[in-house]
């Protein structure tokens, strides 16, 4: 007997078909993963189970949850099912909780909505369940507000809200995507334990195949609103048939081959850099407290070197990036590019500044939507005293667009006409146009789907061959850094705790933090080994 049966589910929004004939089931105590790239319809499939769908949605087919026919249920019936029979955990823990109500209040609310329990009883129940998800009330009183908790702790509260009534089914939509790897590992462990303990079914939506491979009993692979392949995890990993599944798997373990780098000569020298921020004053006359975001960081990036910088959120990666770019002044130490300081007399040094470019994470937020691409990618020309004009400018635009795999004609288009991956190519074209000596990639592929990410990484390797690029690649994603860098720096709480050739750091980490970081990264089991052990192979 299945806990959840979805059969021939079709969904359209304002008449546009989104899901086509999706069939899927979850048994009690089973962990089922739904995976696919953005826009594949995996989230809408999950939302269909509780019918928490956007306005204008038309649903047909069967969604049977236990005894309840979800598609035909009334609003009142659905409210009875939500929270009580199905719990939901969402992607973004920072915004999933009401900022003006206490965590105890929000957890207890699920109980109050579905039972006649008194407020005191509900609060007691909330205390117990918060303790179970790892927030004991002696350290995390029920009276805390969400802003007083970290992202991982907030996700624990969201999980507590979802499971307090022991639902038969838990739906987790990208529950760890917004979290650091070490926290991700803890949350996934917690989910696994809870499923075992409560005998719940778990439907987990994720784009991360490595998460899927280590957690799920069965996997459904979705693409453009359809399930293209499904099966037992081990079997699917070893014997996937559908070409799309293969593309996904290959893209997520994608390794690029970098050309060998030239003989070392220092390009970027960072020596004893410290960056301190003043915190808001808590007392009128007391000096403001300071936080040291970057402490005594020193490293050298050689010409032609591809250097990686990894660390979890808040470790100071972005602060260091801004300091290198000369966007902010440092409070100690010095940063030199080709022997010249990026900051002189409290002012950014333009002569140095024009020799560096940066590519940011968000391909949607980092362009002015009102300008055409040709104008956008020539923005770095503001740094030049005598930027090319007329034919020279057109030539430069054509060259850098071609270099990133776009056509020169794309220069006349607006940014909204491009996909996320194409936008990131345009961001790279913008960085390349003044032939910088150093490019900083700040989480430049983190927002992209695996297959697009693989293409962008391949493009980087290509560009390394053509332009002999030197870059600093900043990322929380260790597998990407492993693939595109020669040497890696590991940063924790504002300090560089380990550095060395990338392969060495990853295969033989020395510092405990690096070890923990690397151990937390979920991995897709090696297909070769899988094939050998799998009886179905």
């Amino acid at each position, binding site marked *: 007997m299945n806990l959840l049966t979805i059969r021939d589910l079709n969904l359209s929004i304002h008449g546009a078909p989104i899901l086509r004939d999706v069939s899927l089931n979850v048994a009690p105590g089973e962990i089922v993963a739904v995976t696919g790239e953005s826009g594949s319809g995996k989230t809408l499939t999950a939302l269909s189970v509780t019918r928490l769908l956007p306005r204008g949605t038309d649903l047909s087919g069967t969604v049977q949850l236990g005894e309840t026919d979800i598609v035909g249920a009334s609003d009142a019936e659905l409210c009875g099912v939500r929270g009580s029979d199905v*719990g*939901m955990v969402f992607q973004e823990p920072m915004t999933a909780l009401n900022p003006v109500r206490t965590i105890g209040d929000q957890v207890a*609310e699920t109980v109050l909505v579905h039972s006649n329990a008194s407020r005191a009883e509900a609060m007691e129940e909330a205390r117990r369940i918060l303790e179970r998800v790892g927030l004991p009330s002696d350290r995390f009183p029920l009276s805390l507000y969400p802003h007083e908790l970290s992202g991982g702790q907030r996700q624990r509260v969201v999980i507590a809200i*979802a499971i307090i009534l022991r639902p038969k089914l838990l739906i987790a939509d990208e529950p760890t995507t917004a979290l650091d790897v070490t926290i991700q590992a803890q949350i996934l462990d917690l989910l696994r334990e809870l499923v075992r303990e409560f005998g719940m079914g778990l439907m987990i939506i994720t784009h991360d195949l490595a998460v899927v491979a280590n957690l799920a009993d069965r996997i459904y692979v979705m693409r453009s609103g359809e399930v293209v392949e499904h099966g037992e995890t081990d079997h699917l990993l070893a014997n996937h048939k559908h070409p799309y599944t293969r593309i996904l798997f290959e893209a997520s373990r994608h390794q690029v081959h970098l050309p060998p780098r030239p003989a070392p000569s220092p390009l970027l020298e960072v020596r004893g850099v410290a960056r301190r921020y003043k915190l808001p004053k808590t007392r*009128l006359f007391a000096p403001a407290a300071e936080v040291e975001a970057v402490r005594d960081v020193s490293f050298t990036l050689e010409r032609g070197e591809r250097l990686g910088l990894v660390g979890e959120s808040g470790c100071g990666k972005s602060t260091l990036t801004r300091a290198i770019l000369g966007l902010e002044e440092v409070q100690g130490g010095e940063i030199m590019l080709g022997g010249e300081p990026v900051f002189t007399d409290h002012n950014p040094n333009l002569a140095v500044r024009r020799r560096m470019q940066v590519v940011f994470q968000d391909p949607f937020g980092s362009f002015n939507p009102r300008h055409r691409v040709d104008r956008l990618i020539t923005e770095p020309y503001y740094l030049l005293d005598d930027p090319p004009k007329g034919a020279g400018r057109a030539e430069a635009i054509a060259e850098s667009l071609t270099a990133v795999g776009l056509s020169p004609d794309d220069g006349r288009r607006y940014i909204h006409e491009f996909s996320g991956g194409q936008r990131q190519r345009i961001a790279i074209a913008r960085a390349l146009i003044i032939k910088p000596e150093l490019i900083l990639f700040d989480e430049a592929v983190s927002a992209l789907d695996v297959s697009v990410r693989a293409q962008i990484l391949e493009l980087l390797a290509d560009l390394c061959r053509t332009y002999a690029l030197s870059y600093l690649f900043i990322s929380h994603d260790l597998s990407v850094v492993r693939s595109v860098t020669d040497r890696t720096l590991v940063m924790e709480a504002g300090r560089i705790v380990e550095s060395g050739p990338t392969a060495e750091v990853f295969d033989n980490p020395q510092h405990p933090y690096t070890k923990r970081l690397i151990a937390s990264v979920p991995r897709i089991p090696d297909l070769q080994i899988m094939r050998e052990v799998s009886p179905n192979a």
Partner: protein
Amino acid sequence: MLRYALQRFLSLILSLAVSSLVIFLVIEVAPGDPASYMLGINAQPETVAALRAELGLDVPKIERYFAWVGGMLTGDFGLSYTYRTPVAEMIADRLWVSLPLAIYALALSTLIAFPAGVYAASRRGRTGDIAVIGATQLGVAVPNFWFAMMLVLVFAINLRWFSAGGFPGWDAGFFGAMKALTLPAISLALPQAAILTRVMRSSLLDILGEDFLRTARAKGLTERQALWSHALRNALIPVLTIIGLQFSFLLAGGIIIEQVFFLPGLGRLVFQSITQRDLIVVESVVMLLVFSVILVNFLVDLAYAAVDPRLRSR
């Protein structure tokens, strides 16, 4: 919370000190000597000098500033140059009209705007929402004195429910006075209510799109429950800001409405004093208005903290 309140209070005191200085300087450096203005262009220089001495205009500016501030702190605002009566009394008389009128109008606009805004937001894009939006469009576009004249036409002249203007004073009894203030309050409140409704609606709609509303719905709350218990309080911050701004406006900004209804309010007093170069009255009223704005801002700040725990912990 206490520290936050103290901080806000300290900033209130500082703002008052700075603004009193600015008001004093601006008015003092403005051209036009009250004494020569009062005596006319043909006055003898000796007479003007004598009057200046009598008005206290001959002492150094810095002394006059401290005398003015010190006086205000003890409730002595000085004598009006024109009427030779205590400014404090003149202002108090007017305040007894303007303050109740402002509170009355603000209460009305809030009472209209809250339900209308919540209703529109909860029926986004449907007929009810469109009707509310249309009404607010009208409310914002039509000037309040036109509303005032229409109200007089309908309720005073045709229906004879209210008098067309004037104020009987509070001696005539609470209800009599409130009745006289009703039409002015409505005409002041309607445009404000229209603005407030729009702010309420858009602020609620922003919040309704937030992730935590989805969390609330996933718990099993109905749309209405989620709106009341999760969205409303979060939507209040921008609404409180607007309410604070509106109060300050209503206190003295009702000058046209005061004219339409022949009300002896603060707006009229300022207007008269300016035309008569009665600087001391202008100074005092402006200071009073500044004080009310700063005080209301202080109260709004406290209300923010009551609504949003994130501000309390600062």
